[in-house]
């Protein structure tokens, strides 16, 4: 079985300060891991993906995530938050077993204060 846990349902930061959104996964197989962002009234957009090529993954809009197998974590970070980063973020796992379905975490709502 596979699952993904987002440790914070809501994170609030000030503009210009670092962002950390935490994610832990559980998988019996080698996983592919993703972060998606969902802005209000817009579709889900892929931020970045880990596919075993490199443990530190860089994505769009200055976001990056580090895969740590020993900690089964895939936390999302950004050095400096921007107002436009306010959105819902989902950590997502998929097993490399041929099954194509994505398993989403419950989401973290990021609020950016001016």
């Amino acid at each position, binding site marked *: 079985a596979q699952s993904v846990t987002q440790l914070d349902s809501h994170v609030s930061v000030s503009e210009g300060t670092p962002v950390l959104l935490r994610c832990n996964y559980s998988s019996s197989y080698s996983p*592919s891991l993703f972060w998606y962002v969902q802005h209000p009234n817009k*579709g889900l957009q892929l931020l970045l993906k880990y596919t075993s090529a490199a443990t530190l993954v860089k994505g769009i809009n200055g976001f990056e995530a580090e895969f740590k197998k020993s900690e089964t974590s895939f936390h999302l970070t950004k050095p400096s938050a921007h107002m436009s980063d306010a959105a819902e973020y989902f950590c997502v796992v*998929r097993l490399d077993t041929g099954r*194509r379905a994505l398993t*989403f*975490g*419950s989401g973290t709502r990021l609020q950016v204060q001016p």
Partner: protein
Amino acid sequence: GAGVSQTPSNKVTEKGKYVELRCDPISGHTALYWYRQSLGQGPEFLIYFQGTGAADDSGLPNDRFFAVRPEGSVSTLKIQRTERGDSAVYLCASSPRTSGGALDEQFFGPGTRLTVL
């Protein structure tokens, strides 16, 4: 180019009615997925098509839910005898690759918000 489109954007129906939700994938994408997102939750997988056939329908909650993709492009999700618990945003996604490799990103549509009164 155009992304994944879904119609209608909103659908309000009464308990017990039948509804159809439509998804137009990105042109040329062979894989198509349906997910359901309840309020305050992450999306949950329903069904996956590779071409015209349902390759994985393990996420369909019961036999009231059915989906088709007769020509390998547009897909319709059909819900019979709707219940209030079916109220959610139904998301469609498509991807271009068939190999099952990890690089085949899923591109999501804006969703259809279904409300069952």
